[in-house]
């Protein structure tokens, strides 16, 4: 295909991505190093017949002029990144000096919004991903042993948790684990504590969010692994059976190695997707116990005072986090490409 023809074919999609993905990234980075102008203050002396007094007032005109002249705001460099709402360098240094054990240091860190969110985001990402892979693999192996007509029904119901809107799915689970809901009731009956409430306990809330994450994403792993099982090398299994391999050994030494590339694929995709965890925190109303980077961005932007600079700084740091998680995928794609040509 000629360059010219390619250009016209690619123009609509290229333009859409340039204007609404590439440009916003630049705009986010710019916003994160500019803060809104402070109002221009001026001191006015007002004199009454008896005495004179000095008053500080906002000079509306000058403020407006300044805002129009430089709409981005004033350049503050990395100040926003280093302030208390983000990396909180001063507070971390202070905590490091004043605490004498790692435990105390980390608990001080947990009071800073960014590190609190980071703590939950990383815990969520690195517990949900392995759990969903294990659960997905177990479902795939079990469903593969079923008769044909049952498979269709099981796959139908299995797809539901994944396809459902994340906010809706988390609400559905949240209403069940509410202390007046059916699972909440069941839990307090099991524990024997009628006042047990998931909403009031941080560890229980974290567990509930992780359970939601696994419930939501396991079907994806299941479908991918199930497709992989259809191409299982039959002769290798037979050879292993002749050699007297037990069922567990067959799974351990033939099935799992065969699925390994798919496991890597699912792990890489899910690490990136779980890192952006957001909707369940809104759905579970869990902000008091667990926050994530995406949630901080959302929280900064919503409400009357849209703190765009703060949101932009967190956005840039989230993008850096995603980039770190994405790098193995890029290396893999690069190798594939090298292999092809």
């Amino acid at each position, binding site marked *: 295909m000629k360059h010219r023809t*390619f250009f016209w074919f690619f123009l609509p999609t290229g333009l859409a991505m340039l204007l609404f993905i590439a440009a916003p990234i630049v705009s986010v980075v710019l916003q994160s190093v500019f803060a809104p102008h402070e109002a221009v203050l001026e001191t006015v002396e007002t004199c009454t017949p008896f005495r004179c007094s000095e008053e500080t007032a906002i000079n509306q005109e000058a403020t407006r002029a300044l805002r129009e002249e430089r709409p981005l705001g004033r350049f503050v460099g990395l100040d926003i990144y280093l302030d208390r709402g983000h990396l909180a360098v001063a507070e971390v240094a202070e905590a490091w000096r004043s605490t004498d054990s790692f435990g105390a240091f980390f608990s001080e860190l947990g009071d800073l919004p960014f590190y609190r969110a980071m703590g939950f985001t990383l815990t969520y990402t690195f517990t949900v991903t392995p759990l969903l892979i294990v659960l997905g693999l177990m479902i795939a192996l079990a469903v593969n042993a079923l008769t044909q007509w049952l498979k269709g029904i099981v796959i139908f119901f299995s797809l539901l948790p994944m396809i459902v809107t994340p906010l809706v799915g988390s609400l559905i689970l949240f209403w069940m684990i509410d202390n007046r809901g059916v699972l909440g009731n069941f839990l307090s009956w099991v524990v024997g504590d009628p006042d047990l409430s998931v909403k009031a306990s941080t560890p229980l809330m974290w567990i509930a969010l992780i359970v939601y994450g696994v419930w939501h994403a396991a079907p994806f792993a299941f479908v991918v692994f199930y497709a992989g099982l259809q191409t299982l090398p039959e002769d290798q299994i037979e050879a292993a059976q002749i050699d007297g391999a037990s069922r567990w050994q067959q799974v351990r030494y033939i099935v799992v190695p065969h699925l390994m590339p798919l496991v890597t694929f699912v792990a890489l995709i899910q690490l990136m997707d779980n890192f952006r965890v*957001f909707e369940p925190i809104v759905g579970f109303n869990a902000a008091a116990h667990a926050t994530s980077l995406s949630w901080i961005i959302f929280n900064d932007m919503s409400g009357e005072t849209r703190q765009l600079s703060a949101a932009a700084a967190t956005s840039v740091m989230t993008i850096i986090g995603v980039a770190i998680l994405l790098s193995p995928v890029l290396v893999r794609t690069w190798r594939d490409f090298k292999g092809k040509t």
Partner: protein
Amino acid sequence: MASTALRAPRSLRIATYGFVVFWLILAAFPFLWTLWGSFKVELDFFSIADWTNAITGANTERTYGTAFTGAGYEGAWIEEEFWRAVINTFIVCFFVVITSLTFGTLGGYALSRSSFRYTFWLLITALIFRAMPPITLVSGYLLPFFEWNVWGILPTTIIVLVAINQPFTLWMLHSFFQNIPKELDESAKVDGCTQFQAFRLVIVPVMWPGVITTGLFSFLLAYNDFAVTSMLLSESNRTMVPEIAAFLGTTYTEGNVMFAVAAVVSATAPLFVLVMFFQRQIVSGLTAGAVKG
């Protein structure tokens, strides 16, 4: 594997079936429970006294005379005007799917037919864009959109969702078009067609299976989005998902949780139908990326 399954010892077979049943309950029970409960009053759905009330509907019967009531749906759809959000959602989804498929087929086709090095870099860029959480882009949209006075209306959201959709659409359609033999459109070009004519007359008629699969995922992305729609739409233009989130703010105080429950069930129903009809396409779309690596 069927042959090995037949020879499986009884204990293993029971364990397998037990596990499948356990997973089915885990996957389906929350939906059935919420569907059933949406026809009850709040005191039944959230029952402190006795959880069986949620099944039998004791309080619902006391209030309305029957064990089922549509009060939640009436409140959500008519009182809170949820139907507006439903209409908005379908407008957004319709235009997002149509536009992103049009852009995506043209771009994906071009990428699959060009052998220059820049196609690889374009695909890599698309992959990086696909990994961006949409919410990180939103703060970049807000200022310009306020400035140009286009914030809060449906077309803006549609264009943004189309753009966010493009990387994924491009990848799906690119790999799909690569499976259509190049000889097809090249022979058309030999016969005197331009590249575009070859695309329109030869490729378009055979591309529908891939386009439908990709379209399903575009639809799901637009339908399920919360971050973009909740930040970019004004109150009167909200789609279903941000509307449900807004319900939570008001209903928890007013004691009308059942409105939100009814709205949630209403928002799940179309997805249920979608999976029913397009299960095969969804499964093939999910595995397409994986099996190819």
